C-alpha cells in the first residue's frame, strides 16, 4: 500500500499568527462570560490598597519624595494592579485549564504548539494587565492627581510588565505539582516583591542591601516607570525599560519550557 501523499504546500513554522489568533479568540470569547469577576478582583483590590494607604497612612505622612502621599501610592498601585491581573490569573487559570478543564489538551490537538499556546495566553493577560493597571491611576486622578501626557504610556508599561508576570505565573503553574504549592510562591516570592517595590514607601531609605535587592525586583521598575511617566522621565528609565523587557523574555522562555514538560509526554 502506498502512503498518502501530503499537501506540502504550506510549511507550518513557529509562532504563527493564525495559531496565536486562535488561542486569543478563545480567551476573548471566554472573557465575555467572566469579565465581571475578573474586572472586579483586578481593580477593586488595588483601589482598596490605594484608598487605605493613601488616606490611612497619608494622614500621618503628607509628603513623600516631594509628592502628596495619595499621588505616590496612586501611581505605585498601578504596578499592584498589573501584578494582580497577570501573575495570579496566570497561576490559577493555567493550572485549572490543564488539570481540571483539560483545555490545553484540546488546543494542542489543533495545529497549535505549546510555544504558541503559552505566548498567546501571556499576550492576552498582558493586555488585560495594561488596561486594568490604569484603574488605580484613574482613581488617583479623581482624588486630585494631575493628568499628564506621560500617562498615555502607562498601559504600555503595564503590558510589558504584565507579560513578564503572566509568564512567571504560567511557569509556576507548569512546575507546580498541585495547586497548594502556589502558597509557597505567593508567600515567599510575590508578597515580598509586592511590598518591597516602592509602592507604599520609597526604597531609598532602606539599608543598602535591600536597595540592591529592590533593583532586582521587576515590579520595582514597573512602579518607577509609571511614577516617572506621570511626574516626569529620568535618565534611569532608559535602563528600566530594557530591564523589564529582559525579565519578560527570560520568563517567557522558562514558561514555555515548563508547559512543554507538563503538556507533552
Amino acid at each position, binding site marked *: 500500500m502506498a502512503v498518502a501523499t501530503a499537501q506540502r504546500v504550506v510549511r507550518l513554522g513557529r509562532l504563527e499568527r493564525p495559531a496565536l489568533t*486562535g488561542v486569543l479568540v478563545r480567551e476573548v470569547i471566554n472573557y465575555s*462570560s467572566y469579565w465581571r469577576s475578573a474586572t472586579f478582583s483586578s481593580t477593586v483590590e488595588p483601589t482598596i490598597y490605594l484608598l487605605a494607604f493613601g488616606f490611612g497612612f497619608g494622614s500621618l505622612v503628607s509628603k513623600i519624595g516631594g509628592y502628596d502621599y495619595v499621588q505616590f501610592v496612586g501611581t505605585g498601585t498601578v504596578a499592584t494592579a498589573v501584578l494582580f491581573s497577570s501573575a495570579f490569573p496566570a497561576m490559577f487559570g493555567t493550572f485549572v485549564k490543564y488539570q481540571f478543564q483539560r483545555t490545553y489538551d484540546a488546543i494542542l*490537538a489543533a495545529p497549535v504548539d505549546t510555544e504558541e499556546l503559552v505566548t498567546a495566553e501571556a499576550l492576552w493577560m498582558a493586555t488585560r494587565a495594561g488596561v486594568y493597571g490604569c484603574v488605580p491611576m484613574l482613581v488617583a486622578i479623581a482624588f486630585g492627581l494631575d493628568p499628564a501626557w506621560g500617562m498615555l504610556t502607562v498601559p504600555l508599561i503595564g503590558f510589558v510588565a504584565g507579560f513578564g508576570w503572566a509568564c512567571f505565573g504560567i511557569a509556576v503553574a507548569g512546575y507546580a505539582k498541585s495547586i497548594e504549592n502556589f502558597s509557597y510562591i505567593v508567600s515567599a516570592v510575590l508578597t515580598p516583591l509586592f511590598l518591597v517595590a516602592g509602592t507604599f514607601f520609597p526604597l531609598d531609605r532602606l539599608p543598602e542591601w535591600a536597595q540592591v535587592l529592590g533593583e532586582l525586583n521587576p515590579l520595582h521598575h514597573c512602579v518607577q516607570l509609571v511614577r516617572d511617566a506621570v511626574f516626569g522621565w529620568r535618565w534611569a528609565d532608559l535602563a528600566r525599560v530594557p530591564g523589564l523587557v529582559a525579565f519578560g523574555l527570560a520568563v517567557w522562555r522558562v514558561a514555555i519550557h515548563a508547559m512543554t514538560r507538563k503538556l507533552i509526554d
Partner: protein
Amino acid sequence: MSRQLAIRLRGVVKRYGPITAVNGLDLDVPEGTCVGLLGPNGAGKSTTMRLLTAQAIADEGELEVLGLRLPEESKQARAQCGVSPQLDNLDVTLTVEQNLRVFAHLYRIGRGERHEAIERALRIANLVDRRDSRVDKLSGGMRRRLLIARALVHQPRLLLLDEPTVGLDPQVRQELWALIDALRAEGTTILMSTHYIEEAQRLADTVLIMSHGRAVAAGPPADLVTEHAGREAVEVYGAPAQLAEVETSAQAAGFRTRRTGTSVSVLGTDGADGRVPEGERRPANLEDVFVLLTGEEIE
C-alpha cells in the same frame, strides 16, 4: 485495489518511567476506512491516540499521519485531523455555537467559510436548536455529539475518536453509533479506540486488538472471530463446582474454554458433535477472540 494509508505506525514504543505503555505497535489505517483499537483499560489505546497528535513523543519507531512524519511534521498533520478526546474538554461556560467558533479559529478556517462550517457542524451533531445553550446545560449525550462535531468543523481528512461513548447510557450510545456510522458511510477515515466489544464490532471495518501496548491481532471483526474462535460456542451455566468440572472435561476433549462470570464458554464447537457438553449454543464473538488472545476479561 491498493488504498493509501492515513496512519502508518511501525515498531512504536512509548515508555513512562518503568512502564511501557506502547510496546512495538504496528498500525495501518487505510484511507476511507474505520479502524477500531480494541483493548482493556491500560492497553495503551489512549497513549497511541496522544502519539498521533504529538502530545506524546514516541521513544522508538516510525509514525506517519496523512503521509507526514511525526513528531517533526505533526503540526501539518494536526491541521488535517479532528480529535474527539476521551475526557470532555469543552468550554462549559460557553454556548454550543461559541465552542464551535473557537475551534473554527483554531483550525484556521477562513472568515468567509467560518459561518457555513459552524452551521454544518451543528447539523452533524443535531444541535441546531441548542446552538445558544451553555454547554453545562447539555446532557451527556449532547456534549459527546458536540465534541465530535467540534472535531469535524474543519472537514478533516482523518478523525481520531478516543472512547467516543465511554460512560454513556445504552440508548445514548446507540445514538452516537448512528452518528459515527453516518460519517463512515460518507467515507471519513476514522481511528476509534474503545473498550466496548459491541462498538468495535458494529462500527469498525478492521479491528486491532491491543494488549500490553502491542497489537495481538488485526482484521475485519468477522474474520477474526472465525479465525480464532471458530463459528460456534456452547455456553454452560451452573454452580461453580459444576463449571469447574465442565471446564476440565471440555479441555480434556481438546476444546478451549473461557469463564464468563456465571458460565463457562466452550469454544470452537462447530462440527464437533458428540464430545460437546450440554448447554446453550451461540455464535462465537469478538469477546471470545479477545479473551483467547490476551487472557484478559473485557467489558
